[in-house]
């Protein structure tokens, strides 16, 4: 994360363009693959919503995905991929009694799998519902460990291991093991629509900076003051023809 010579610390952010996202779930499956997530675990998931719907607004039209809002033929449908928002003022970091969850200087919020006591307070505290607990022995898709497949230590702390121990909590890592070697998070790499952008907010010329500064990208639940490092470009009003 830190360039040894310059001691430069980037400010990592991800921007999801909801104009582009078609809810295909490729990023979610990609995340599952690269992180060897057990069955029933989804660090990243695609919520069915309507364009620019406030996340605390009226209940959805249905409990099923892909069901639009409105009455035929006046319908609205949009998708919101949600993984850890990597909050700068993260409730999960605040509540973790043992500092197992911590924020790295670049903005990534990580979990030390060797320190977590499994109290799940962080899950109660996270407003975005992105944390997943290892309730018991995980089940995996057949075929063995997939994805990155190795342990990854951040400053001596185990922040990724292909098979997480029972009784600890886990979530999106911003793909630290990839971004630390200059690769993109896997969900960004696989998104077939180019709806996800990752980069350095310190760099004013970066695509993410532009999307945030000029593209009007916003955070989820800004009113909570969690100051996430994941941003969403709202759906621009489309030219709707008279009906």
């Amino acid at each position: 994360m830190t360039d040894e010579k310059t001691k430069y610390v980037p400010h990592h952010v991800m921007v999801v363009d909801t104009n582009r996202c078609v809810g295909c779930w490729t990023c979610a499956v990609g995340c599952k693959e690269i992180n060897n997530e057990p069955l029933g675990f989804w660090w990243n998931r695609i919520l069915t919503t309507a364009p620019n719907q406030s996340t605390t607004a009226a209940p959805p039209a249905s409990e099923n995905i892909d069901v639009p809002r409105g009455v035929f033929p006046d319908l609205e449908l949009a998708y919101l991929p949600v993984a850890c928002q990597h909050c700068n003022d993260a409730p999960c970091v605040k509540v973790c009694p043992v500092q197992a969850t911590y924020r790295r200087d670049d903005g990534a919020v990580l979990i030390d799998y060797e320190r977590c006591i499994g109290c799940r307070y962080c899950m109660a505290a996270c407003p975005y519902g992105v944390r997943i607990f290892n309730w018991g022995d995980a089940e995996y898709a057949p075929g063995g460990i997939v994805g990155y497949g190795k342990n990854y230590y951040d400053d001596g702390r185990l922040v990724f291991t292909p098979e997480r121990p029972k009784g600890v909590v886990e979530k999106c890592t911003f793909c630290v093991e990839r971004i630390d070697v200059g690769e993109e998070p896997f969900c960004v790499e696989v998104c077939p629509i180019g709806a996800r952008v990752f980069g350095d907010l310190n760099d004013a010329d970066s695509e993410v900076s532009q999307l945030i500064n000029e593209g009007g990208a916003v955070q989820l639940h800004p009113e909570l003051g969690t100051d996430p490092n994941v941003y969403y470009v709202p759906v621009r009003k489309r030219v709707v023809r008279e009906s």
Partner: protein
Amino acid sequence: MAINTVSLPDAAEGKVAKSVGVQIWYALLALIGVIGFAAWIYELDHGLAATGMRDVVSWGMYIFTFAFFIGLSAGGLIMASSAEVFGIKALKPLARLGVLSAASCVAVAALMIIPDLGQPTRILNLVRHPNWSSPLLWDVLIITVYFIFSVVDLSVLQVHAVEPTRLRRTMRLLAYIGLPTAVLLHSVTAWIFGLQISRTWWNTSLMAPLFVVSAILSGTALVTLLALAAERWGHFNLPNDTREWLRKFVAMALLIDLFFVACDYITIFWGNVPADRSALNLVLPGGPYSWLFWGEWLVGGLVPLAFLMVPRLRRVSGSLGIATFLVLIGVYAFRIELVIVGFVNPLTQFPPGNALGTYNATASSFQLVGKYTPSLVEYAITLGLCALFAAIFTTGYRRLHLADGKMIRDPLGSASLTRDEGPPTSDDNSVRDTTLATKP
């Protein structure tokens, strides 16, 4: 501990141990305890998958029972301290019983957390890597303080009871510390929930006062019940003015408690913020959790109020016992409601919802609106810990000779509080079942 320095009549002990009823009682508690322990071993092996908790509702019976016990622990200490601080004489006979109950409750509450941990062996990380911004850490701290305090207080009261001249100043001092400690305990526990912006159902500044009131309410109710039980089976003497005071006090606490809850409802109604409303709708009649509403408002609210306040009902035999028992149910319902509804109604509520963290080939791996049914393991462990509470309390009660007539005297040496005070009221259980009696 201090009690060891106090000489106790050993004859009593011998008799106690021989009682068949007590042995059955202990055997029963041991059985429940062993089942609970076995369930915990099972849970350690299978992980928390053995519970009914999953990712949307990720706290369950352990936590709401924990919060319940924390609340219960309030009563005794507050009573003991109030007796001292506010000079409420009617409460004095309950002081030791109360503090004993407080200590047992808080100990059991603390233990309640252990089976809830995914990695219980790492519990010392709390000491090794404490995070001072976490309400949980503060709660652990205050629980520890509260437990130690209760034990000390009990010892002091005990010494005082045996030798009324000793430790009077210490007792007074402790009384003054006890009140704020209790208030703090309940506030910090409330803040575990109340500070979380993630759950609108929790995130109210009323949470701490509400916890304090409901703690006082349930704690007093518990002590009342324990006293009534002691009276019935343990030859404890509950004076009539104490009884009357308890009746009024519980009624008052219940009214305030319901008032606070109502305040929250009104705030939600008036504001009509969807996220808040969707949580409240779960609870209100018609919603899936309305049984908790009825538990809280009817079973634990209006009915006990009636038993406590309506003259005709007051006269029903055992009305105080019935009322306080129902109050406990009501407060437990409130604890369940607090924890579960907070989870059931996540802030971000779009399909498909949150990943559950477990896989079922034929069901969805997601939940939009949380569901929770405690597993047998949770019931077993929780009941086991309740049995532990009963065992601690019984033992304490017996070893400290709380029912020993000799020791029931006014710690301040004022009016004598013996059972011959006044004529028995209709709800005074004058006919007692003596099978479990330890003394003739």
